[in-house]
């Protein structure tokens, strides 16, 4: 097992975790997180591997650039809500790289007694809103927080990462409309548009329509990016954060990114041997 992963990486990365601007470092961070997600998949077939891999670069850039932090009690802090809570293993991986949980804890994910539940729970106090899992609710919570921060005059921003399949839940539009009504410039919805949901490709299950036009029709300035390109993600976040307008980001991604056997499919699980093999094949030192 130790051959697949050098715990030494963890300490190196924890020092550069909080304010990475260099694209190469962000890319390396994503690579290491991807490797840890695969490691967790080897230990727990119940994790949502494909979803964790599609959202991985989005979360890497949010944490890696210091927008989101694992333990920040300050009143001016930003908030990050992973509304698609089933992809939480991408956050667990980044948390391990930062040093806040150990690699051994990652191996225990989903076990009875592990704090790393397969949807985030209160035991992980370093996740801002650790009770997602039921789809469609994170945006409303984010809107409430953003209203509160705005009223207090706080500079904190609220990033809500939402799945494309999740947009089937009508509550997501209730919440997006509320944010638009209140012109919440401190609220940043990021849609992980991986084109796949539980029963298949989104266009086969239920088309999401022309999402860019839907959102712009609601009043959002819509930014589209390649959701696996950390440079593009960092740039668009810089742009959004320097504006007080109503912004939304659509990040086009691939479900299962990095695992050809499940890429662009609804498959969430891979055999343990394959997962371990992939862990050993991923090399992150460019």
């Amino acid at each position, binding site marked *: 097992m130790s051959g697949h992963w050098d715990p030494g990486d963890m300490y190196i990365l924890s020092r550069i975790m909080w304010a990475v601007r260099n694209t190469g470092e962000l890319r390396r961070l994503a690579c290491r997180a991807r490797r840890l997600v695969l490691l967790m998949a080897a230990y727990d077939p119940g994790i949502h591997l494909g979803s964790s891999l599609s959202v991985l670069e989005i979360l890497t850039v949010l944490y890696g650039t210091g927008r989101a932090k694992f333990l920040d009690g300050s009143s001016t802090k930003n*908030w990050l809500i992973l509304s698609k809570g089933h992809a939480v293993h991408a956050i667990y991986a980044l948390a391990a790289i930062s040093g806040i949980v150990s690699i051994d804890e990652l191996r225990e994910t989903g076990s009875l007694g592990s704090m790393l539940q397969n949807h985030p729970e209160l035991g992980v106090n370093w996740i801002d809103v650790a*009770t997602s899992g039921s789809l469609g609710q994170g945006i409303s919570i984010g809107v*409430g927080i953003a209203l509160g921060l705005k009223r*207090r005059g706080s500079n904190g921003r609220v990033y809500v990462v939402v799945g494309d399949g999740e947009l089937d839940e009508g509550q997501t539009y*209730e*919440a997006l*409309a*509320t944010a638009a*009504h209140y012109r919440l410039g401190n609220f940043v919805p990021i849609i992980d548009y991986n084109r796949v949901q539980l029963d298949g490709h989104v266009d086969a299950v239920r088309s999401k329509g022309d999402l860019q036009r839907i959102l712009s029709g609601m009043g959002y300035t819509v930014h589209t990016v390649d959701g696996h390109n950390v440079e593009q993600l960092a740039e668009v976040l810089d742009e959004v954060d320097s504006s007080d307008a109503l912004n939304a980001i659509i990040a086009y991604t691939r479900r299962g990114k990095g695992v050809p056997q499940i890429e662009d499919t609804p498959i969430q699980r891979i055999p343990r041997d394959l997962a371990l093999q992939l862990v050993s094949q991923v090399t992150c030192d460019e």
Partner: protein
Amino acid sequence: MSELVALSPREALGRALVDAGEADRDVVVVTADVGDATRARYFGERFPDRYFNVGISEQNMVGVATGLALAGYKPYAVAFSMFLMRAWEQIRNSPCRLGIPVRLVGTHSGFSDAYDGASHQSLEDLALMRVLPGMVVIAPSDSCETYEAVLQTVDSRAPVYIRVGRELHLPTSCTLGMKFEVGKGYVVRDGGDVAIISTGIMLHFALEAGRILEERGIDALVAHFPTVQPLDTVLVERIARRTGAIVTVEEHSVRGGLGSAIAETLSQAYPVPMAIMGTKTLGKSAKSPMELLEYYGLTAENIAHRAEELVKTARR
């Protein structure tokens, strides 16, 4: 609070929200296009920057209130009880799982919205809220208790559901000058033959039933439990030991409400014969709540009748 006697429950709610807002700057109110109907708008008129109307979206409203609580505020989320219930899963998975104090206020409960009929008559809300671990569930009897329930939950550390009516006002607790306290039941009239226990507006009818029984030579204890959860189990058990027979009555389904809560407690602590009175319907349109209460048998005479029957059969 003598002026509350003259106010309807929803007017008392509007007044209470304003007073809570005066007392604590962190109190915020969220509503779902029913600011006028619930009188939450009084708060909005006094504190426009602490009042958020999210439109007709109760599920969203629960999430927004949860977010405001996370950001350090003390939210009251006010909507029609019936339509707040469509957000049951949001209530379970957001404030309950987080264990944070979001105060949900459901108005137009029970038969209080007589005109609108079954679609608007919330007769299952106590059951739905009571099944949630950690949720405080309050059904005030009148405007005085409604006012107190709001003011006493400003500093709650648990999520709360307060069930409020509309215009029908039977100011029994106001008249009796009873002291409302979250989590406590109280005895309104002592007696040893049988107990009548009410929640919500049924206090008025329970007390009247007690008088009817007295005329018939039956000494009935009447108690009121505005808080359904956490249940005042100490008082429940004391009443069971004192009277040996209990009639519960609520403007709510006979399944899952106060009667169920008391039966769950007593069947495991001190079983006594019980009659659980309430509704077994989804409701109907009518000209007044009183007409509906009578139609569905929630009258003082019927309560007295069931109590009498219980007294005569329980001891054989």
